[in-house]
């Protein structure tokens, strides 16, 4: 099953280059953030960079497979993909490993994978496939099935005690509904109800104390500077102290001296901002938002509705990750364990993102009828 050369030449090269830049940029920062930390790297300063590059290589290989298959097969097998995603999520309850209160990992041999990163792709595919068939999304009844498609995996992720990852799917749902032509007023009304009624209700009656604290600390980081507010406060100090030009590559003090926790994963953006300053951090954001921009452009150019929805959904997942993660480091969004796409150290997230990009490229490649 070879890919036609001409098909490859139809790739979105700008998008490809941007992703490569983001991954390499990320590796450079991961190296800077971990090389001095012998407890983390066990004496091998390149350990995390190697892991990241391996994940990127695996992701590239998987991407080639994805590219070779016309994305319309995804539509045809959407039900099975969805079911597989749910099973993958459920498997965590059987094989799962608990880290920091959440059980989101399963270990296969030496590799730990995070099913929820992959499941997001499956959910987007299923939702796109379903919505592509719907012409009329103007009443509440037509929202029920798509909502259930998203709610089931969300429930499973919530049950894994990973509320943050679950909530990522909510904006993705609305984005895809909107793109699919759902009644805008109705969507707005639902968002309003969620924000004004369900969110406060959940906060007071459903959230656990530690989750409530995360929210409280978001509104007032000084509330618990040595506890829940610590990470965000140290991150804000790291970013702010970077100034215009930063402290220089490898010169962070907040990360190097461990004031900043999780500096190679969740808080990699803080390291960028501390070491490379406003220019470096803006550059990183620019690369990421360029990827998002290209993703939405692919949706605009897609040959059909399924392709467009696929691109919108996968790009929106990325956008939410970027905004929530970078926002978290600057106390613009609440603290969750969501990684920064392409930058944060973490194999599953990187591979899932690479595969998402491959699917978007797939849509782009086949935007026109190909004449042999």
């Amino acid at each position, binding site marked *: 099953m070879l890919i036609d050369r001409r098909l490859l030449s139809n790739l979105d090269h700008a998008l490809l280059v941007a992703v490569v830049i983001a991954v390499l940029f990320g590796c450079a920062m991961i190296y800077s953030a971990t090389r001095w930390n012998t407890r983390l790297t066990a004496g091998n300063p390149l350990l995390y960079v190697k892991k990241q590059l391996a994940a990127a290589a695996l992701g590239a290989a998987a991407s080639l497979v994805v590219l070779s298959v016309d994305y319309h097969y995804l539509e045809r097998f959407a039900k099975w993909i969805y079911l597989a995603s749910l099973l993958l999520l459920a498997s965590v309850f059987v094989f799962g490993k608990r880290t920091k209160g959440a059980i989101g990992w399963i270990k296969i041999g030496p590799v730990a994978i995070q099913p929820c990163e992959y499941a997001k792709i499956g959910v987007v595919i299923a939702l796109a496939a379903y919505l592509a068939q719907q012409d009329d999304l103007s009443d509440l009844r037509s929202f029920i099935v798509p909502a259930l498609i998203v709610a089931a995996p969300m429930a499973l992720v919530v049950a894994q005690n990973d509320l943050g990852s679950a909530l990522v799917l909510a904006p993705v749902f609305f984005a895809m509904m909107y793109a699919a032509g759902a009644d805008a007023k109705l969507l707005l009304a639902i968002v309003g109800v969620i924000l004004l009624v369900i969110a406060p209700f959940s906060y007071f009656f459903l959230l656990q104390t530690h989750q409530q604290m995360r929210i409280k600390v978001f509104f007032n980081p000084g509330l618990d500077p040595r506890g829940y507010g610590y990470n965000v406060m140290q991150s804000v100090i790291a970013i702010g*102290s970077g100034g215009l030009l930063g402290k220089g590559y490898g010169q962070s*003090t907040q990360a190097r001296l461990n004031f900043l926790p999780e500096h190679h994963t969740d808080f990699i953006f803080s390291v960028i901002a501390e070491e490379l300053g406003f220019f470096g951090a803006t550059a990183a954001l*620019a690369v990421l938002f360029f990827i998002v921009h290209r993703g*939405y452009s692919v949706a605009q150019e897609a040959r059909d509705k399924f392709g467009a929805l696929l691109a919108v959904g996968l790009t929106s997942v990325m956008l939410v990750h970027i905004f929530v993660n970078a926002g978290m480091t600057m106390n613009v969004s609440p603290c969750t364990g969501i990684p920064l796409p392409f930058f944060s150290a973490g194999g599953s997230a990187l591979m899932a993102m690479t595969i998402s990009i491959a699917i978007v490229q797939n849509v782009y490649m086949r935007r026109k009828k190909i004449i042999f």
Partner: protein
Amino acid sequence: MMNRTRTQSERRLRVFQIFALCLFLVLVGRLWQLQIIKGEYYKSRATANRLALVPISAPRGIITDRRGEVFATSRMAYTISVVPQEFSDREAEVRLLSKLLEMPVEEIEAKIAGQTEGRYGLPYMPTRLIEDVPPYMLVRVSEHKVELPGVIIEEEPYRSYPNGSLAGPIIGYVGLINQEELARLGEKGYQSRDRIGKSGVEREFEEYLRGQDGVTEIEVDSLSRPVATVGARAPVAGSTLVMTIDAKVQQSAEDALRSQLETLQSGKYKHATAGAAVALDPRTGEIIAMATEPGYDPGWFVPRISDEQWRQVSTGVSGLFNRAISGAYPPGSTFKPFTAIAALEAGVIDLDDRILCSPSVSSRYYRKRCSIWSKGRSHGYQNLTEGMINSCNIVFYELGARLSVDQMASAAKQFGLSQPTGLRFTPVEATGAVPDSSVRDFMPGELASYAIGQQVTVTPLQMAVAYGGIATRGVMYKPHLIRQVIAPDGTVQTQSVPEVMRTAVLSDRTWDYLHHSLSEVTRIGTASSAFRNFGIPVAGKTGTAEVPPGDPHAWFVGWAPADDPEIVVAVMIERGGGGGASAAPVARKIMEAYFAPTGE
């Protein structure tokens, strides 16, 4: 229809682009706010995170006598501390420490626990286990250094007083700063761990003696583990104070006073347990010696005084009370020169006038007596000079009858009695009291006792200054203890110059009378036995101040050489009996030490 959906979909997809752009701008805007607008603030926060400033105590300045004899200096003391984060095997290390330091494990753990509460961002601060460790313990810990990565030995200057209790009450002592001092001096950079002069020169000249603490900047990680030393500022020692005190004279003053007290106690005067002596140069105001008994050794307060020693110095006849400066006593007959001054200046008596001293005249003086009557003798007819030489009370009762209280008071005040001498010292000197008619009315009998110094109080220092004024014929210098302040780099920071505090203007006849009669006191008068064969003419006056019901206070105040004054000495012994027998011999020994050839 198909076309409509198509355009709607295109429009909606464009919304995503715009929405993404908005989010991008929000994030960049926030970056701008944090990094550019508030960048400096967060830089300082990051620095505060990163750097622990560990102070290095500066040694206090040295205090020497006028010849450079060291009275107070600093020695290096060693403190054993632990940095709990640095322990590799905490339990084993604490157990080993407990053995080496002879300190129970629980006590060590309790000290550590006092400093390590909370989770993040503990300040870097070693827990001090033992201060000023004895050398053998220091050696033991050093030998096990490899097994004790969490233990550090800190060096710290401690005050040391090589001369022990000599001049102790002048030097004063140093102690840990208290809350009140911290509140008052906090803005001068004092911190709660600092030591500060509490009394004496140590306190009064704290500003010069205090050094400038240095600091070591240690980079620490989030668990306050030291990572590296990134900077240091060396401490600057305090300035050296050169006192006006002459160690040799000081030593003899203390020895003479102490041995005289012992002699008196073993003899007739069981309660003679305290006394004071002041020697100063009447030409400059420099204090040559100042003794107060009992005294104390400032070394007792390093690093802190034991409860037992504190009880010893602070209760009963307290060593912390500087009698030379803070004690106000009735001067007794040493007041008589001032009565004579008032009488001569007022013209109420001629030098030729004779007054009869005999028990038969007692009724005229309200049944008051002359001290000689108890020996079965009397002075007979006396002129004013003889009255002074023999310290005849009747002569002065007569003056008391002829003078008003204000005339006597103003003569005394002209020489500074009842006023501060201006000495810079802590605690502030007592002023004593010279009451006049503005205070109350005096009965005629009280005026008689006023004339012999029983109605006023003075400090030994005031008397030394006042007699210095007589010796110099009217010029009184501000007494002082410090000659020079020398900065650590050797330059003279402050040099004290003689400062005239007050002048007394009297007729030459009165000055001549005073010099003549007071010189005769030590030759043929009440102090003659004390100064027999002294070699250098001395002028002075004895005093025996009645303080019923106990024994009287013994006084002698005088200067030498009588015709060319270099030193004036005031000696006062509480409950010491007669001034001529008890106080004058002490004064003589002080003068002997002063005039002895230095041998250099």
